[in-house]
């Protein structure tokens, strides 16, 4: 760097800030701006989450760890992580920083007693929160001071001598982020080399930062911060903190160590024990002569240190993992990863067994001898760690003992417990206790309880659905026996586990939900704990997770009561961490919706006016915003009080409070629209004053609030206020800030849409600037901008008219940028669709057609239908005015139908189907017919998508031109279509069957009957189609064809088809038969159909019954003429041994009885009911359903009295099973005709004191 000379920028090496080019701006200044950018705007955050979601991927560290297969492909099953942490944004991950606080005092239970000193009371919590805040402030002050010092230092260095100047400038420029460390140089270690200093500083900082977390409450289960890297910043400190560690844990990873060894003499801090023998061969030999290999021959081989197992010092990661595993505290994902890798390595490198060695080496037979191992030798079982092993200091260091090796250690096979689901490695720390063999008898009650809960939770988390279900039920039923403490102390740490997956979280949350119901007021001491775990769900990107979180918090609020909820959450309201405040605000809004807004109002009022900290005010106002968002128009009754609570925030001295207040007012106005303007009276003035004074983000928020309030106003006021705000809006049109742009567009849309705003005003004041600044190509590139602009423009067009807008943008249809053309096209499309083309004059019309033709021809071959839709809409709207342009358009289409590119051909065909109706309207039948011929010639198309479009185009031409005048004539067209019916492509099938169906419907006579029969056979295959629309069209086509050529032949085809195996095909066939019966009158079909019942084949008979069921469903009242004819068949079916026979026959009876109700067929129906009734005792749900249906049908047709008479005999039957059935049926009758059967209920005799006789029924005049 220095070699480059003065003031130059190096060509190689790290990036440097070139002061000459970019001016002398102080780089460190940017940090302050970045800090300010942290903002609580909901929309922004959600947008950020959304944008993350669009392409989220696993963290890099994980991707690097993925096992790569031989051919370099990544294992797909490993690629998709189901864990929640992996898809979370950094912001959401901050949930892991939170600590499950210990139980709190339940003031209700205590009554007037003074709480035990050991129990945490509200006062304690508040005091802690206060301390935390002060600490944070102090920290910030210190940081600020250091930054200032650094700046001063940099300023000093900026006046360089020739020699040192470059280095200093480079250092200052290259490390803007390292400003803090460089500031510390003067205080701590000015002489130290850069690396060491950095490390030192980092560790110092981390320890300071971590201190707050280590207070006496951290002893809660699972929350010892020392073992959780990544929580208190310890993870980052891992490497950096090493110099500060005591010398015993200082054996570094090899890579690190090699470098470190070189530095050793210079650092001077290392003792000779720090260097491991494995490294001796490398750097250490020369570097640490005091510990030379040659000098200490007693060591023997450097590679096999004599240290016993358990002596070696593992890497920090392993250390953490081991300790975590032993102590049952959560581990970080990295630690798991490490553990998994270790396990695998251990397994692969496991020591060879004696048998294996025997097999490999020559044995005694060949004259070799197996020697015994030397006395005192102990093998090292984990070779992976051998490298890192620290040698035993011979002669014994005091205070250290060689731990015993656990010879029972299991290396690979995870332990499996009987009756319990499999445990994942990461479950060990929670459920590890279950693996220990214990005598259940010896356990204390508490331990037994804990073990029981643990088992149940493991079943819920990892078990099979039945296991899970019964475990969940047990947990619920015994919740009160277990007690709140033991339950939550186990569930909540599980939920905080960093390796949790979505499904597991869902299940555990479900457990909490169920348990909450049972525990009720017992949950009070645990409210805060639960909230810490559940609150993150409220900002989860998954909708269902959010709903789940809301439900839990609402239930919690109902169980614990308002006072407890407030006491639990109050300390978090002015927490220093924005994340905590944000989630707390959301949780509070849920509480408000659960317990009612009025209950919370006094509290909110107090919080929003807090003098102590702006954070409290900010959160209070945010709660109101969240309430508005969550509850929607339900805020209306309390609108006035809510606005009153927040309104002073508009004048707050803190910018963030101002911003959130404006956003809250926006949310309230949005929720209450179109009512409630009078509630906003008080905020109008500060808002309108504010927009004149403010800039930047706050201004954006104020504008947003105004945008939502204006639509609520009366016309007169709206006009006035719009004019006021429009000056600012127009000024902000030119803002480079994307967020501001979107808000401005939205506000313009809202203002323009309001009644009182005059078109003239918009035309003269707004439009010129609007088009100048917004209708530029750049706007089309961002999807959200694109949409906002189109919507606003359409709204403006609604006021100023179609031609005004279209006239301004029509030239841009010929713009060279494709996205921009699309945006113009979509706007034209929507404007024309909304307003029509009546006010477009001849000149504009020409320009417009010219433009859309250009845009159509120039469009890239992509999927978006924007241009086609626009084309279609505009041409259709022009109607007859389009006539002069049609030849040109058709020319283009014809030309493009022969294009090389399939997409272009498809677009051309699609366009035909859109403009065919207009061509008919313009009397261009000849042109249409010509296009028909062209399309007909193109039926040999090989691309299915294009073929589908061509068929669609033909269909629309046939539809407008009619069968008789169609060219090519139908008799030529249809035979060409028959083979296409075989095509399996869905789009082709659908369009083809539609076209064939239409021809069969309207022009069947043009085609010989034999051709139709051929088509019938083809159609049978189409009944297998996946798409319902195709099957429906097919079935309908059968009807048309039957109508055209008579039902006999079609029916034969269909009846034969009943023999096929496939169920879907048979079902569709029966539907087709029913449709044929409906279109050709039942008497043409029924004889053949009933005759088919004679075929002794299950499928056929069932098919016939099913067809009958459909027939009677479709023909309704007509059924009265056929009911006697089919009675014998139904009798037979209802007595059949086959369940499905009876079931289907029951549904026939149901449809039949419903159709003929009130038409005098009671005799036949009563007869059939007698056959139906015995089936009520069937157990299969299908037959239960159809029997019940049949009886219900008969109730309608015969009246409830008849059915009631059947039922009375079983209502009080001695067998419970019988009663169950009869009461179910009785209830059905009761629900259906409660009033009608009052008169038919039996006369009852009085029974002792009870009068059952209904004397009123005996009254007569």
């Amino acid at each position, binding site marked *: 760097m220095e070699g480059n000379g003065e003031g130059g920028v190096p060509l190689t090496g790290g990036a440097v800030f070139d002061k000459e080019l970019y001016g002398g701006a102080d780089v460190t200044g940017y940090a302050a701006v970045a800090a300010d950018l942290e903002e609580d705007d909901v929309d922004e955050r959600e947008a950020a989450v959304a944008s993350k979601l669009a392409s989220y991927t696993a963290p890099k560290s994980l991707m690097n760890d993925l096992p790569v297969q031989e051919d370099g492909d990544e294992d797909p099953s490993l690629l998709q992580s189901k864990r929640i942490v992996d898809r979370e944004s950094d912001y959401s991950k901050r949930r892991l920083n939170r600590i499950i606080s210990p139980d709190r005092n339940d003031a209700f239970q205590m009554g007037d007693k003074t709480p035990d000193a050991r129990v945490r009371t509200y006062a304690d919590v508040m005091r802690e929160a206060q301390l935390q805040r002060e600490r944070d402030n102090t920290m910030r002050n210190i940081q600020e001071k250091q930054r200032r010092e650094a700046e001063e230092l940099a300023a000093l260095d900026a006046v360089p001598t020739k020699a040192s100047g470059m280095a200093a400038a480079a250092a200052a420029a290259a490390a803007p982020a390292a400003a803090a460390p460089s500031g510390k140089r003067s205080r701590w270690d000015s002489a130290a080399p850069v690396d060491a200093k950095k490390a030192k500083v980092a560790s110092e900082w981390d320890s300071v930062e971590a201190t707050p977390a280590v207070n006496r409450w951290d002893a809660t289960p699972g929350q010892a911060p020392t073992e959780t890297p990544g929580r208190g910043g310890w993870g980052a400190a891992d490497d950096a903190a090493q110099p500060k560690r005591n010398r015993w844990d200082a054996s570094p990873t090899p890579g690190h160590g090699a470098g470190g060894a070189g530095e050793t003499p210079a650092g001077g801090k290392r003792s000779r024990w720090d260097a491991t023998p494995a490294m001796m061969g490398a750097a250490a030999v020369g570097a640490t002569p005091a510990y030379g290999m040659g000098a200490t021959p007693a060591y023997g081989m450097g590679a096999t240190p004599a240290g016993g197992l358990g002596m070696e010092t593992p890497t920090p990661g392993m250390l953490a993992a081991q300790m975590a595993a032993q102590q049952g505290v959560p581990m970080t994902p990295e630690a798991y990863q490490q553990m998994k890798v270790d396990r695998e390595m251990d397994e692969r490198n496991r020591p060879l067994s004696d048998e294996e060695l025997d097999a490999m080496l020559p044995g005694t037979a060949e004259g070799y001898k197996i020697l015994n191992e030397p006395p005192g030798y102990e093998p090292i079982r984990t070779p992976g760690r051998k490298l890192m092993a620290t040698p035993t200091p011979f002669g014994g260091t005091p205070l250290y003992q060689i731990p015993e090796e656990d010879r029972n250690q299991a290396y690979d096979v995870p332990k499996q417990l009987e009756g319990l689901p499999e445990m994942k490695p990461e479950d060990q720390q929670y459920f590890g206790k279950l693996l220990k063999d214990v005598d259940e008898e010896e356990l204390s009650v508490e331990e037994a309880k804990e073990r029981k809960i643990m088992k149940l939770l493991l079943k819920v988390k990892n078990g099979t659905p039945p296991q899970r279900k019964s475990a969940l039920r047990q947990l619920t039923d015994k919740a009160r026996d277990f007690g709140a403490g033991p339950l939550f102390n186990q569930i909540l740490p599980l939920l905080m586990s960093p390796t949790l997956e979505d499904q597991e979280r869902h299940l555990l949350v479900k457990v909490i939900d169920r348990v909450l119901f049972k525990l009720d007021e017992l949950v009070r001491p645990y409210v805060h704990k639960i909230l810490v775990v559940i609150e993150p769900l409220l900002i989860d990107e998954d909708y269902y997770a959010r709903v789940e979180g809301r439900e839990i918090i609402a239930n919690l609020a109902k169980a614990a009561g308002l006072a407890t909820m407030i006491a639990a959450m109050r300390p978090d309201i002015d927490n220093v961490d924005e994340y905590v405040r944000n989630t707390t605000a959301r949780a509070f809004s849920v509480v408000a919706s659960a317990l009612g807004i009025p209950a919370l109002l006094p509290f909110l009022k107090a919080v929003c006016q807090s003098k102590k900290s702006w954070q409290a005010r900010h959160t209070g106002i945010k709660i109101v915003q969240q309430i508005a968002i969550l509850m929607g128009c339900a805020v209306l009754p309390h609108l006035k009080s809510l606005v009153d609570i927040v309104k002073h925030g508009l004048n707050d001295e803190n910018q963030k409070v101002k911003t959130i207040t404006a956003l809250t007012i926006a949310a309230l106005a949005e929720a209450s629209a179109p009512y409630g303007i009078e509630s906003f009276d008080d905020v109008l003035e500060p808002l309108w004053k504010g927009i004149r004074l403010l800039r930047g983000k706050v201004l954006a928020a104020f504008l947003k609030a105004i945008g939502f309030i204006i639509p609520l106003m009366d016309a007169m006021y709206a006009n006035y206020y719009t004019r006021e705000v429009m000056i600012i809006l127009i000024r902000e049109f030119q803002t480079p800030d994307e967020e501001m742009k979107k808000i401005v567009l939205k506000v313009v849309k809202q203002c323009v849409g309001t009644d009182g705003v005059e078109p003239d005003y918009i035309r003269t004041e707004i439009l010129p600037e609007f088009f100048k600044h917004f209708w530029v190509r750049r706007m089309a590139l961002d999807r959200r901008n694109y949409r906002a602009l189109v919507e606003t423009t359409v709204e403006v067009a609604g006021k100023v008219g179609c031609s005004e807008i279209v006239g301004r943008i029509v030239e841009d249809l010929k713009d060279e940028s494709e996205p921009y053309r699309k945006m113009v096209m979509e706007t034209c499309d929507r404007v024309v669709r909304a307003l029509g083309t009546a006010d477009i004059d001849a000149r504009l019309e020409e320009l417009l057609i010219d433009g859309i033709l250009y845009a159509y021809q120039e469009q890239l071959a992509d999927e978006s239908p924007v241009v086609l839709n626009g084309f279609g809409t505009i041409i259709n709207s022009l109607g007859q005015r389009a006539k002069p342009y049609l030849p040109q358009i058709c020319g283009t289409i014809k030309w493009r139908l022969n294009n090389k590119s399939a997409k272009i051909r498809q677009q051309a065909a699609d366009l035909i189907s859109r403009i065919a109706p207009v061509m008919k309207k313009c009397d261009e039948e000849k042109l249409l017919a010509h296009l028909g011929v062209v399309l007909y010639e193109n039926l040999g198309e090989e691309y299915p998508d294009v073929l589908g479009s061509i068929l669609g185009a033909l269909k629309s031409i046939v539809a407008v031109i009619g069968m008789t005048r169609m060219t090519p004539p139908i008799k030529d067209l249809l035979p060409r279509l028959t083979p296409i019916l075989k095509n399996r492509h869905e789009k082709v099938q659908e369009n083809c069957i539609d076209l064939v169906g239409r021809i069969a419907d309207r022009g069947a006579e043009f085609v010989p009957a034999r051709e139709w029969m051929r088509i019938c056979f083809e159609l049978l295959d189409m009944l297998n189609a996946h798409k319902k629309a195709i099957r429906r069209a097919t079935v309908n086509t059968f009807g048309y064809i039957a109508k055209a050529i008579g039902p006999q032949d079609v029916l034969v085809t269909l009846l034969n088809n009943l023999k096929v195996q496939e169920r879907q095909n048979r079902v569709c066939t029966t539907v087709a038969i029913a449709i044929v019966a409906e279109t050709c009158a039942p008497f043409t079909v029924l004889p053949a159909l009933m005759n088919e019942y004679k075929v002794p084949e299950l499928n056929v008979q069932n098919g016939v019954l099913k067809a009958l069921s459909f027939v009677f469903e479709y023909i309704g009242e007509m059924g009265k003429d056929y009911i006697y004819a089919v009675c014998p068949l139904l009798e037979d079916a209802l007595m059949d041994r086959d369940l499905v026979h009876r079931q289907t026959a029951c549904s026939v009876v149901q449809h039949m009885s419903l159709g003929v109700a009130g038409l005098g067929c009671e005799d036949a129906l009563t007869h059939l009911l007698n056959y139906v009734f015995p089936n009520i005792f069937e157990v299969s749900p299908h037959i239960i359903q159809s029997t019940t249906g049949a009886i219900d049908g008969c109730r309608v047709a015969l009246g409830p009295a008849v059915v009631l008479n059947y039922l009375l005999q079983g209502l009080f039957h001695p067998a419970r099973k019988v009663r169950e059935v009869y009461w179910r049926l009785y209830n059905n009758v009761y629900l259906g005709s409660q009033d009608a059967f*009052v008169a038919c209920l039996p006369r009852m005799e009085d029974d002792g004191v009870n009068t059952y006789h209904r004397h009123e029924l005996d*009254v007569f005049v």
Partner: protein
Amino acid sequence: MASLADRFNINAQLEHLQAKYVGTGHPDTNRFEWNLNIKRDTYASFIGHHSLSAYHAIAENESIGRVKYGFKQSMLLPCGLPPEKEDE
């Protein structure tokens, strides 16, 4: 397992039905409960159909309003006090 779950479901449905429609019955409905529902339904029907109220009014030589009021009153304990539970 399945049958157990089914029964559970059906019972749950029944519970729901009962909560929604008071007059529906269940296998353990006793004589008293059934008659209670029958009587109440009968009175409700009389009150609901104006012509039936009018008929009774003529028969009893009372005003229609009074007859309706009487029906409403008798809906309170139409069958007298419930019998003592037998075993519990």
